[in-house]
């Protein structure tokens, strides 16, 4: 068979066919080759997007203006496609629409690999992707919505004018938005009842001969169900082929960490080195430390000792806020020697591990301060420990007392405890930030204790030059957003995470 050269050109560009629409069901996996860097970057950026979706979904009503505005800006920052009007021919800055759609496509499939392994991961992933999809579908105009449906073989037919007339009374009665003119104006779709079970079950819709009659504005419910079902099935399939994927050594570490990854700054870039003096620490602990570090500091001052877990968590945090090695050694030594440890013992037993923290011993890994995720998930504290996340690890009564002793208002404490009950530990800490700084909205999404410190310092306007140095990742489109986790941090994460999971 002879193909004309024109046809050959068309066939050579199957991808443009694939990205005809800014929204997709992710039915087909990407077929191209990409570099490992792109693999990593894409995955991390989508993860950031999904985490934003999660946080916003908890903090705001999903259809509210605040929700949409905040999600809008996150989309722009991370360069994901969400509105159709972009004309590729116009010159503009940043990635093209095609590139955005390609990233959307590829990143989704990479995260499937990372999130298919357990029931919890699957549930989380599906929930965020569904919310994301709902948001993007609702952004489409009416025409785009219909295009999308047909493009994806959801050939839900519209009801003909004659049939609408005949059924008009029933349709008006069935739809809660229904009024005579609305039924006339908008399209109704005939959907097989199996695709609209929730509406059938609750009798919220007109049902005839096995079809439900749905107004155009409500078609998103059907589409969402379809999306959710497809994704759920796909993840189950992905999980089965995962062992083969994981046998690729290049992919295995990255995929294993994506599901636990912290994807922001690592705060090992010590631009603030030497700007903190030891005398300030007590004051700073009360004003600008997150609850976990404040607790550790207080414990250290009171008992002149901290166990290994506490030393690691607090010590690395201090490094992150700018303590030098010499300052750290002085700090720990002076505190420990007030207790049961004498100078010699300190130098023998503890100094080594502090220098180790700063990368001056052993294999010289410069360890990075722990992210909230790490503090919450790994190494839970036992009796006599003071590390961990107090919102996660302290029981409610103890937490309440502690907050009371730090002069948090009763209503504030109630709000915090509510968030804790819903397992939103970082949001609880954010609320603690807002209450202790007397503000309504923290303006950032908390992921890291050092981030808490920096934001606090910025707010209080003090802290010398510390606040100027480092830009928090969530602000503005010019922020250095593309910071893939450096290999060292990744390697360190591997060690600790592996150990955590081995302990069962």
């Amino acid at each position: 068979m002879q193909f004309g050269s024109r046809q050959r050109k068309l066939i050579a560009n199957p991808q443009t066919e694939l990205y005809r629409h800014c929204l997709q069901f992710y039915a087909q996996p990407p077929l191209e080759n990409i570099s490992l860097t792109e693999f990593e970057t894409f995955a991390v950026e989508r993860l950031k997007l999904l985490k934003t979706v999660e946080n916003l979904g908890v903090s705001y009503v999903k259809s509210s203006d605040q929700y949409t505005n905040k999600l809008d800006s996150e989309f722009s920052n991370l360069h994901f496609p969400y509105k159709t009007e972009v004309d590729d021919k116009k010159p503009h800055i940043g990635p093209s629409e095609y590139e955005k759609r390609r990233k959307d496509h590829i990143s989704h499939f990479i995260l499937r690999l990372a999130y298919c392994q357990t029931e919890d991961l699957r549930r989380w992933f599906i929930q965020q992707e569904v919310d994301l999809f709902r948001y993007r579908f609702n952004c489409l105009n009416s025409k785009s919505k219909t295009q999308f449906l047909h493009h994806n073989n959801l050939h839900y037919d519209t009801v003909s004018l004659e049939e609408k007339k005949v059924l008009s009374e029933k349709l008006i009665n069935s739809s809660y938005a229904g009024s005579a003119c609305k039924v006339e104006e908008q399209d109704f779709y005939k959907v097989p009842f199996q695709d609209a079970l929730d509406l059938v079950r609750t009798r919220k819709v007109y049902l005839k001969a096995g079809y439900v009659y749905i107004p155009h504005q409500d078609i998103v419910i059907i589409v969402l169900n379809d999306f959710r079902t497809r994704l759920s099935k796909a993840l189950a399939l992905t999980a089965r082929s995962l062992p083969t994927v994981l046998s690729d050594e290049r992919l295995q570490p990255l995929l294993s960490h994506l599901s636990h990854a912290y994807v922001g700054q690592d705060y090992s870039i010590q631009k603030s080195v030497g700007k903190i003096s030891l005398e300030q620490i007590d004051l700073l602990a009360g004003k600008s430390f997150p609850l976990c570090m404040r607790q550790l500091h207080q414990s250290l001052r009171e008992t002149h000792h901290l166990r290994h877990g506490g030393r690691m968590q607090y010590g690395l945090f201090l490094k992150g806020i700018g303590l030098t090695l010499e300052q750290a050694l002085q700090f720990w030594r002076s505190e420990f020697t007030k207790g049961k440890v004498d100078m010699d013992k300190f130098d023998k037993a503890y100094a080594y591990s502090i220098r180790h923290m700063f990368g001056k011993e052993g294999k010289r890994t410069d360890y990075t301060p722990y992210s909230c995720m790490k503090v919450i998930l790994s190494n839970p504290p036992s009796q006599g420990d003071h590390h961990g996340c107090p919102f996660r690890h302290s029981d409610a009564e103890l937490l309440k007392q502690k907050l009371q002793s730090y002069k948090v208002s009763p209503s504030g404490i109630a709000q915090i405890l509510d968030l804790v009950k819903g397992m939103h530990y970082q949001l609880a800490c954010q609320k603690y930030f807002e209450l202790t700084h007397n503000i309504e909205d923290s303006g950032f999404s908390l992921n890291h204790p050092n981030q808490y410190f920096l934001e606090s310092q910025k707010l209080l306007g003090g802290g010398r030059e510390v606040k100027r140095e480092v830009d928090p990742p969530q602000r503005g489109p010019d922020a250095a957003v593309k910071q893939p986790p450096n290999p060292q941090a990744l390697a360190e994460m591997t060690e600790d995470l592996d150990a955590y999971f081995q302990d069962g």
Partner: protein
Amino acid sequence: MTSTDYDPACLPDLLPLYYRRLFPFSQYYRWLNYGGVQKNYFQHREFSFTLKDDIYVRYQSFSTQGELEKEMQKMNPYKIDIGAVYSHRPNQHNTVKSGTFQALEKELVFDIDMTDYDDVRSCCSAANICNKCWTLMTIAIHILDRALREDFGFHHLLWVYSGRRGVHCWVCDEAARKLSVAARSAVAEYLSLVKGNVKKGQYFEKEIMLQYCYPRLDVNVSKGVNHLLKSPFSVHPKTGRISVPIDLKQLDKFDPFDVPTISLICEELDRPRVGEEDEQVDSKEKGSDMDTMERRRIRDYKRTSLAKYVKILDQFLDGVAQSHKGELLKRSDLQKDF
């Protein structure tokens, strides 16, 4: 003279006779085979038997009609239940890798039980029924039948009297058999308007009608794909009545007390029916490949009160067959099976 003479103690003697000479095996197979459109549909169907002394055996399955007959004639079950069509032969389910043996399809079923109407009937209670309260059942059947046809678009509904105090509806459409658990649950909930416990108080006339007459369903029966339900033409051990199909066209004339018992039809077997025997040989028997056993069996049940009920099943199956004709042709064309 329909329900007299039934004594549960006689079951062990009556059942062998029933299964050897009266049970309509060929119609039964014709039903569950669904025209042979889907491979192994009959072979992967689960049956369960309740034997003497309440011994219950599950995961029975059969390769052919003949095998089913032989087994039933050997075991003489007191009760027969029909389950789902599975991914593998149910009688081999232990050999299948764990997790892969799954219920795939089953008719959508409904169970209406007279005891659920106890709060609105004063004539009877619990397992008892009479012609007065049976009216409520008649109304419920009309409503459910109409809803299933008009709202959901189902066509092939087999209504069966359970033998004592209720009816079952088997929705046999292909779409119905393929419904998921979630879908079955949604359909059942859509249809569940009234649960019982009518409150005393002021009601409008329509509300009263609704409270009394609207079908009261046991949703759990309808939800599960692997749920086992009493088979048509099974015997009710307590009343002796056969679970017979109901002709919806004659629904208002249906009288549960007119339904034959196993003792009656066995008795009728022995009674020679005057003049009818020779004339009843119809086209089905003439010139077909049926063996003598089967031919005799057809002549046998036709001499009894069971005849008209088997006919109802036949008519139902004719309707189902129409919808298969197209399917089979399509498939044989695809496979070039001439």
